[in-house]
């Protein structure tokens, strides 16, 4: 039987907290950018202007075809280079966080756009007709009537995707960014207490994600009764 030795956890807590901050930072930034960009993509996809709809479909399908790990790897290798050339960011700037966020955001946008598209489609066609019949133009109808309902209907799915995203932040190990999981495994490796550290990390993830998904459920219930 394996002998557990939890002694390196207390000392590592400050690092783990820092790692958690990085994970959260990535998640929040990626969720926000992902939802905004995903909404635009969804509207393009549903638009009657063919090139826009093709572009959105192509974008979504491309990103959904590639494993996140590979996307992150590509972004990690290429984004800094691009930024350097396009925006004149000084060479050698540490852009790991930036490229990780960009990678996540663009990747997640593909998933969010599918959720939001479903959300828009879940709003009955009559709502759009009713808004138009009151004299609202396309943007007013979308902004005041359709999107608020689409988002409300999709909040559970959006949050669930957020939880998945949070778990997936552990994949930034490919860019050597010290997120929560990466920190845990590095400290575990350094101290020769990998098993303990990762069990601990797993427990923390579970508690956070489970609480979040309970919140989602609570919200869903409230939606149903409201």
């Amino acid at each position: 039987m394996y002998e557990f030795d939890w002694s390196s956890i207390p000392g590592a807590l400050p690092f783990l907290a820092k790692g958690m901050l990085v994970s959260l930072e990535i998640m929040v930034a990626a969720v926000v950018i992902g939802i905004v960009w995903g909404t635009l993509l969804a509207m393009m996809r549903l638009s009657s202007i063919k090139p826009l709809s093709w572009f959105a479909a192509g974008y979504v399908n491309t990103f959904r075809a590639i494993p996140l790990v590979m996307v992150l790897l590509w972004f990690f290798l290429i984004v800094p280079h691009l930024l350097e050339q396009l925006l004149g960011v000084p060479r050698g700037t540490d852009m790991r966080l930036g490229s990780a966020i960009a990678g996540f955001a663009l990747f997640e946008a593909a998933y969010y756009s599918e959720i939001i598209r479903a959300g828009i489609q879940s709003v009955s066609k009559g709502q759009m007709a009713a808004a138009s019949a009151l004299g609202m133009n396309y943007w007013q109808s979308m902004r005041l009537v359709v999107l608020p309902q689409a988002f409300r209907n999709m909040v559970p799915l959006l949050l669930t995707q957020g939880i998945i995203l949070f778990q997936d932040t552990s994949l930034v190990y490919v860019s050597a960014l010290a997120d929560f999981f990466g920190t845990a495994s590095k400290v575990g490796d350094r101290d020769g207490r990998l098993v303990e550290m990762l069990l601990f990390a797993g427990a923390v993830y579970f508690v956070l994600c489970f609480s979040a998904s309970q919140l989602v459920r609570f919200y869903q219930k409230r939606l149903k009764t409201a």
Partner: protein
Amino acid sequence: MISINNVNKHYGAFQVLTDCTTHVNKGEVVVVCGPSGSGKSTLIKCVNGLEPFQSGGITVNGVAVGDPKTNLSKLRSHVGMVFQNFELFPHMSIAKNLSIAQTKVLGRDLAEAEVKGLQLLDRVGLKAHAHKFPGQLSGGQQQRVAIARALAMDPICMLFDEPTSALDPEMINEVLDVMTELAQEGMTMMCVTHEMGFAKRVAHRVVFMDHGRIVEDDSKEAFFDSPRSERAHQFLAKILQH
């Protein structure tokens, strides 16, 4: 007021409306009826440009609906429309449902819009429910709110698409009562409905559609007493039997 001339519309190869022509004068109440799928909803949606059509012309108060230069949003804001499934905005309170288009489309200020909204709610007997959300009202109540919402825009005419067919039998009359009152006040109305009692009481004319064509377009008396077409005859027989 509303003038429909030789309108044709098709979805791909499927012809939904064929050569539809009819006119609604100011203050007139026209009931549109016909079997399911005959194109009633489509016709009425063409009137305020919710559905485009391929040929023919529709003018509302002199404005050509099919003309690309027409500001459709503006036109629609003067034409009230009431749907089968009410289509209140579920994420807004009743008061907000009534005020939102007034403020965002007509540019009224919020206070004014709310006062107007409350007046109309009062008129349909629902003043006490202003703060509630649509989901908390019964179907009949929701449909009355929908009528009030359309009235809040000071429409020059009103379109109804089967306003009572999604309602429990008990609630149908509370909605028909509001509509009857409107008609008696002289509102121009075009109304798709199967409520023949309402048609007999209120309509000036009845338009009967079948397979995308206007088969009969007659005074109410002529229609009910001696429908000219066989199809209308059958339809009336089926619908009035029970």
